[in-house]
């Protein structure tokens, strides 16, 4: 069981990020979310979603899923995304284990881009 992301359905509205932030802080905030649309390549409209899991950082890119194991060396030629910088410091996705209806990012995603695998 885990979060599944279809980056092509994402419109970068950030509802998932805000819902996740609420799960962490019991308030509206965006700094502790473990799921974020990456918004840093605005001129090129290159948009996807990054998810911090227990052992990995999942980048749901338009062209496919990329899983980076935390602690492993990354490709030095690859440009880092601004939204990804603080992700490693955040808590991992716990699938909103205290919420009866399941992960809040799924509840609030308006386009169905996020689902349970």
């Amino acid at each position: 069981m885990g979060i599944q992301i279809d980056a092509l359905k994402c419109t970068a509205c950030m509802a998932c990020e805000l819902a996740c932030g609420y799960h962490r802080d019991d308030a509206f905030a965006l700094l502790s979310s473990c799921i974020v649309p990456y918004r840093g390549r605005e001129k090129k409209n290159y948009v996807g979603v990054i998810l911090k899991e227990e052992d990995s950082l999942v980048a749901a890119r338009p062209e496919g899923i990329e899983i980076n194991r935390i602690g492993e060396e990354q490709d030095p030629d690859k440009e880092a995304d601004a939204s990804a910088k603080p992700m490693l410091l955040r808590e991992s996705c716990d699938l909103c284990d205290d919420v009866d209806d399941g992960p809040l990012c799924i509840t609030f995603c308006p386009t169905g881009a996020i689902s349970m695998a």
Partner: protein
Amino acid sequence: MEYLASDKIAIVDLGTRNITEDELDEDLVLDKIGGAGITKHLYDQYAVENPIVLGTGLLTGTLVPGASLGVITAKSPSTGRISHVPLNLDAGMELKYSGFDYIVIKGTADKPVYLWIHDGILDINDADDLWGKDTWAATDHIRSEMGDDLIQVLGIGQAGENGSDLAQIGINYWQSADRMGFGKLFGEKNLKLMAIRGMGLLEISEPEDFMDDCAELIATIRKNPTTQKQGIAAAAAALGEEDLGDFLDPLTHRHMACFNTPVATNTFIFTEEDPALLKESAVPEPGFLLTDIFPLIVLKKAGLSAKDAGILLKACAKYGIDGAAVAELSAKSGLTDPAEIEKSFPDLKGPVESTGGSVFSPWAAVGKEINENWERRQAVAYILGLHPIWLQIATELTEEKLLDLAGLGTEMEFTPDTLDEVIGDILA
């Protein structure tokens, strides 16, 4: 003001470079609710100093579907009326989380400056090296200097610097909903741009009930077929305008939403790249994000291709001139070549019909005649912080429901009578 707010109003005097801060008084919120209700109040308070007032609604930045909106209130150089322009994309949200609920900008700087707003701090910085740059170069410069690509930039290009009535305050690289010539006001004040980053936190009075209501709303909205169609063409069709789908589809890369807005009212077209490309383009500027329906309709009717319309609107955004006004004036003059139209930018003058007949930007009205229902719905959007196009489409978001949510979020009570009074004040 404890909930859904930062409890801070900044008064910025560009002339003296003095910045003062006031608390957001709960009595003011009870009386004027927020958004345009309070920006209008603050405008009136500082009216002799021709201020520009920015603010957000009580629900801006929350999980209420469509809660994306900030508002700029000022006297329009185009119409002479006190007018309100929505801050769309992510700009309203970033302002909400920046640590300030409202910002009053008065006075005139003696040389170019920009405002840097973040973490409850507001600085006036020199902008000598930004003045003269187009909006794209200025946005790149600020983001590079601050090392943060998520900073939202409300800025002017050469149109605002040179005093055009058609000058627009752009948002990052894109056209905003500023049809009122507010870019000219920035230029007159020697204010090149405002750089905004929001990393704050909003407490909620009744968080569980608030979240339950928001979840119920989004579940209901998902069942409405009209609210499931994405893109600027679908938004136009939902508003009763012609469907631009056939016009834009061949160039459409993806549809992009304003913050927490279920319908993406913006569409990115690739004019210099294959629109079907999934991986990141190697072209530095592959296309343009279309954010305004009206100029597309006018340019299409004038005979421009979608590609030429995109190229022209990108040039408008860089120069900081209202694309709707340019479309209207170029259609009247018979020009259809984007390069020729761009050459005419410095000499373009109004009046233009694209300013509409209301105190609200007609961005969400498209070509429809403004009527009482439209104006009331816009007022509700601007007061509470909802996306103005979205609120025209989403009938699920009733006034009663929105006032209930504002009450749940703030531990305050807002009645329909209060809303009527605030709307009356704004429209007076």
